[in-house]
């Protein structure tokens, strides 16, 4: 079979990514632009406006990097959910327009599945247990019986959301993770904070409340608060991952954001293009009439025929 190429559009949150993937597993382009809010966190509508105004430019860059023209593309993949509605709709609209202009099929991709698949491609891990953490997701998942099963997840807010919210409270820049990590390096005193794991599930809302109260009490150095927040949150993640490993007896762990190369760990278009390719080769097509975005599309509802 001839080599197929596709373009993938990712726009679930503050990143707009456009990637190009080929059916032999090569990534030909991975262009990203990030909406940086003037203050605070992501505002969905403003992020969507940013994506819309940069869409043409990023698609152009990706095609140029891949050395391709629009007519070389065999189909268009896009991130169909989960994520922020206005942002998702911007990407979906661009994908529909491009597919219909070029007269090629459309393939809707689940954002979480895409993170796992690009991780497998980048690391060569065959059947990993995946810890997927971001601003909106905290999930421990593995492939069992045809689907990515969720063994553990947050019971309330995502760990990234906890960090972002605290960073905003403490006047640290967005995104919160790196800013807190930087402060934490200068801290070293462990403040008692709630450590909440329920089997393989976790909870971060109590931790956020407690750390906010400790900050407002002015009893501690911000460096020590950041250090404690980080140590407690990471220990919780370490523990549930270890429990899930023991439980599933999977041979390896894929930790997004730390072991997967950064360009593929952040939200990016290459992961959408590559996962779209896997889906397309298994016969998946998304007719325009049913290409609605689903901002709450669950990972464990996605058919994964390419791993059957």
């Amino acid at each position: 079979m001839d080599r197929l190429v596709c373009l993938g559009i990712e726009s679930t949150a503050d990143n707009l990514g456009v990637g190009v993937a080929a059916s032999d597993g090569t990534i030909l382009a991975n262009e990203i632009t990030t909406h940086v809010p003037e203050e605070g966190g992501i505002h969905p509508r403003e992020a969507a406006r940013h994506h819309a105004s940069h869409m043409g430019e990023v698609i152009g860059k990706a095609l140029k990097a891949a050395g391709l023209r629009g007519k070389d593309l065999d189909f268009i993949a896009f991130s169909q959910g989960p994520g922020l509605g206005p942002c998702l709709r911007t990407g979906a609209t661009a994908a529909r327009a491009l597919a219909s202009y070029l007269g090629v099929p459309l393939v809707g991709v689940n954002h979480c599945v895409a993170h796992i698949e690009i991780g497998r491609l980048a690391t060569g891990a065959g059947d990993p247990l995946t810890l997927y953490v971001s601003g909106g997701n905290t999930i421990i998942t593995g492939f069992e019986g045809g689907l990515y099963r969720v063994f553990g997840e947050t019971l309330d807010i995502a760990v990234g959301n906890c960090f972002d919210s605290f960073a905003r409270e403490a006047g640290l820049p967005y995104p919160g993770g790196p800013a807190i990590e930087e402060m934490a390096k200068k801290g070293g005193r462990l403040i008692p904070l709630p450590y909440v794991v329920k089997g393989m599930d976790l909870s971060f809302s109590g931790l956020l409340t407690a750390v906010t109260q400790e900050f407002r009490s002015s009893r501690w150095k911000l460096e020590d608060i950041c250090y404690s927040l980080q140590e407690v949150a990471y220990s919780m993640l370490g523990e549930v991952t270890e429990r899930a490993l023991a439980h599933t007896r999977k041979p390896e762990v894929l930790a997004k954001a730390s072991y997967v190369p950064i360009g593929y760990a952040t939200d990016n278009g290459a992961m959408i293009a590559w996962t779209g390719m896997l889906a397309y080769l298994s016969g998946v097509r998304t007719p325009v009439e049913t290409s609605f975005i689903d901002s709450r599309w669950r990972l464990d509802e996605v058919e994964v025929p390419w791993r059957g």
Partner: protein
Amino acid sequence: MEGLRLVAKGAEADLWLDSDWNGVRVLIKRRGLKEYRVPELDAEIRRSRTSRTAREASVIHRAKEAGVPTPLIYQVDLEAATIVMEYVEGERVREMVDVLGDDERRELFRLIGRTAGRMHGAGIIHGDLTTSNMIRSGGRVVFIDFGLGEVSWEVESRGVDLNLMYRMLTSTHYGHTAELFKVFREGYEEGLGPEAGEALTRMEEIGRRGRYLERE
């Protein structure tokens, strides 16, 4: 260690079998140091008076009083993060699910539901209520691993416990999810009585709650 045999390496603890500990056959559970935790937090979790080691022993004691089958505790050593307990003969439920016949499997999960209901009725929350932590022993189901356990009568805590069980049925025993949850639920209602409905409703709410918060 002489006469000891490592029988399992769990996520949190190593389990050693000692066939002659003061004349009895025991399991020695030792929570090992975790390198990924800072030392203060590690000590707090494993060895303090509020550690999981201490909590496991006290919650098991309480469960016994309520008639929930658990291993007997012979000795607790906080400094060494070690518990010496009864060695329970039997098979782990997790491995039994796909082995049993339909009727037997349903009976087993009805019994698990009844035991869980009785446990919640006695104010005990297991904290890791999964089939990995249940041993079928004779005609009973013995609940083990109460390290994340707590004493609570709150609907929320019960709901979280039930949610763990439900997730286990969907993620691991996915071939039997609906069938097994149905009998589990019936057993739970028998074991807990009228308060069961509220806990089960809360479980469903919790299941929907953390999933991709509506942020538009």
